């Protein structure tokens, strides 16, 4: 046991010397000069033996390194201490020669069956008493002290001690842990420290580190974000809608309906979410007014927040493209294996919102107008690209993205202005929609921020459709 790193290091000086002699002989023989024989009086042999001894000393130290590696790894990095062992103890009864009162000093040495013990601490024998109980402690850790009981004798002559008798036998001694035993225990400790996703960020990080063996061939998780408490399930209920009113009355069920849930159904505009619910009055308020009046309209709520023991992870490939359904199912099963039963782990695709941008720029003198516009278009495409949107941290290459729960679901008009104006060669963007217009449909005219729909939305824009068009002014 404990044979985790088997490094064979020759630390025998004679063997090292023999190796040196064999090499000299072999080299000369190979070169056509057989017959070289060593002699103890030869200077090279004398030198070889001395160097071999030095090499053996170094090799002996090197041979200690494998155990030292685990020792340092375990004690310093993992914080698993060596078991130091324990000293055996023995309860004894001391009978004194008189009743004058004495103090048996702590540290007084005695032998028990020729093994060393000492008095743990001062023991005061009051006047009038001739016996006392004294706890003896073995001078060293180890099991070899266990079981001894007699004979007991003081190392230094104490004339007022008449006799010492053991109450039972010594026990409790334990050997210090050796390297092999420590390595075995360290392996067990490490097994208990297997990765466990706890926070939402943990789930995203684990999804990004998913081994290729659990995914369909060729699938790579390139981006991920997770929301704690979010359940992507859809729930159907009925309610009464009123045209031009955001309130839905007579809601039949609030199961899976929370603020932020996406509501779909007849007379409900696209992208409508729940702003608030009132179970007492069986009503809920939508983010947009209904476009039709209906009684008992069938409505669907998708996604709910604040669910206990529930985490949803949104994943894409490195380009921000949604993974296939089998890949997400496999990923969910793999993540679920790291949590206790009753945890709900979902892996789903993000929602995508196409973003259209048109802009005009006035270029600085000396800059190529066409190249500058192309650079500005690329800057917008990069900013709005699903592969880069909401990059949470430079440390992970933007693999995790910020989601709605983290407040990152708005395409900000002014931010896009900044992106364009930061392009070298751009002097300014004209004001208003003439200079910059954004929207979710072609030929946009908006100058307001755009809120992306969904819990972990990604914008979509590309140069082939194109969704970003620049021109000069």
């Amino acid at each position, binding site marked *: 046991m404990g044979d985790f790193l088997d490094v064979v290091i020759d630390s025998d000086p004679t063997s090292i010397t023999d190796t040196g002699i064999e090499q000299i002989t072999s080299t000369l023989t190979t070169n056509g000069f057989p017959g070289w024989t060593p002699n103890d009086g*030869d200077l090279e042999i004398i030198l070889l*033996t001395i160097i071999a001894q030095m090499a053996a000393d170094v090799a002996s130290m090197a041979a200690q390194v494998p155990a030292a590696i685990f020792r340092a790894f375990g004690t310093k990095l993992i914080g698993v201490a060596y078991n130091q062992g324990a000293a055996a103890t023995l309860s004894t009864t001391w009978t004194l020669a008189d009743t004058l009162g004495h103090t048996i000093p702590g540290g007084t040495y005695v032998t028990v069956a020729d093994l060393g013990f000492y008095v743990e601490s001062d023991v005061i024998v009051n006047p009038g008493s001739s016996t006392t109980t004294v706890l003896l402690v073995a001078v060293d850790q180890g099991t070899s002290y266990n079981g001894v009981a007699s004979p007991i004798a003081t190392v230094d002559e104490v004339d007022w001690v008449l006799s010492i008798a053991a109450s039972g036998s010594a026990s409790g001694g334990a050997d210090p842990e050796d390297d092999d035993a420590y390595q075995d225990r360290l392996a067990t400790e490490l097994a208990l420290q297997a990765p466990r996703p706890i926070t939402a960020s943990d789930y995203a990080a684990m999804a990004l580190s998913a081994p290729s063996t659990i995914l369909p061939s060729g699938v790579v998780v390139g981006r991920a974000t997770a929301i704690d408490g979010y359940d992507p399930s859809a729930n159907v209920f009925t309610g009464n809608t009123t045209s031009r009113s955001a309130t839905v009355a007579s809601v039949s069920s609030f199961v899976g309906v929370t603020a932020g849930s996406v509501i779909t159904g007849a007379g409900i505009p696209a992208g409508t979410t729940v702003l608030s619910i009132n179970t007492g009055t069986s009503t809920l308020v939508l983010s947009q007014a209904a476009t039709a009046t209906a009684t008992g309209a069938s409505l669907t709520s998708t996604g709910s927040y604040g669910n206990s023991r529930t985490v949803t992870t949104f994943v894409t490939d490195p380009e921000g493209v949604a993974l296939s359904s089998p890949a997400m199912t496999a990923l969910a099963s793999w993540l679920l294996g790291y949590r206790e039963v009753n945890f709900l782990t979902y892996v789903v695709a993000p929602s995508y919102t196409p973003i259209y941008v048109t802009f005009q720029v006035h270029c600085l003198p000396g800059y190529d107008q066409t190249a500058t516009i192309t650079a500005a278009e690329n800057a917008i495409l990069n900013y709005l690209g699903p592969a880069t949107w909401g990059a949470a941290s430079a440390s992970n290459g933007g693999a995790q993205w910020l989601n709605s729960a983290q407040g990152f679901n708005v395409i900000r008009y002014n931010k896009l202005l900044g992106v364009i104006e930061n392009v070298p060669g751009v002097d300014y963007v004209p004001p208003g929609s003439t200079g910059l217009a954004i929207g979710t449909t072609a030929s946009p005219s908006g100058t307001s921020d755009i809120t992306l729909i969904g819990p972990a939305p990604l914008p979509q824009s590309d140069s082939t459709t194109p969704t970003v068009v620049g021109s000069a002014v």
Partner: protein
Amino acid sequence: MDRDAFVIELPHFGAPFAFGMKGTVDVVEQDTVEHVAACVFNIASCTVGQVPMLPDLGISDLTASTVPVDTDGLVAEIAGQEPRAQLMATESGSQLDVTLRTIQLNVSTQGR
């Protein structure tokens, strides 16, 4: 390798250790009188126990020996370790310091 390119075929370090004119280490041919003399030089340069892995190599420490030195014993001691050598030791002293002794060892080999 071209055998003719080497003067020394089975080399051993010469004694005392030295570099030659071309910067190479002086070596001697195995089993020549120069080789035997080099071994005798090395043995006589060590005291017994000085080389840990060759504890029997060397001669007895002569520091506390009486004058005249037991050259026969010295020769026997060396010959025991280098049986190829035929040794003759001559001792001479200093007129200024009778404790300072010089022992010259003449080495020859038979049939070599």
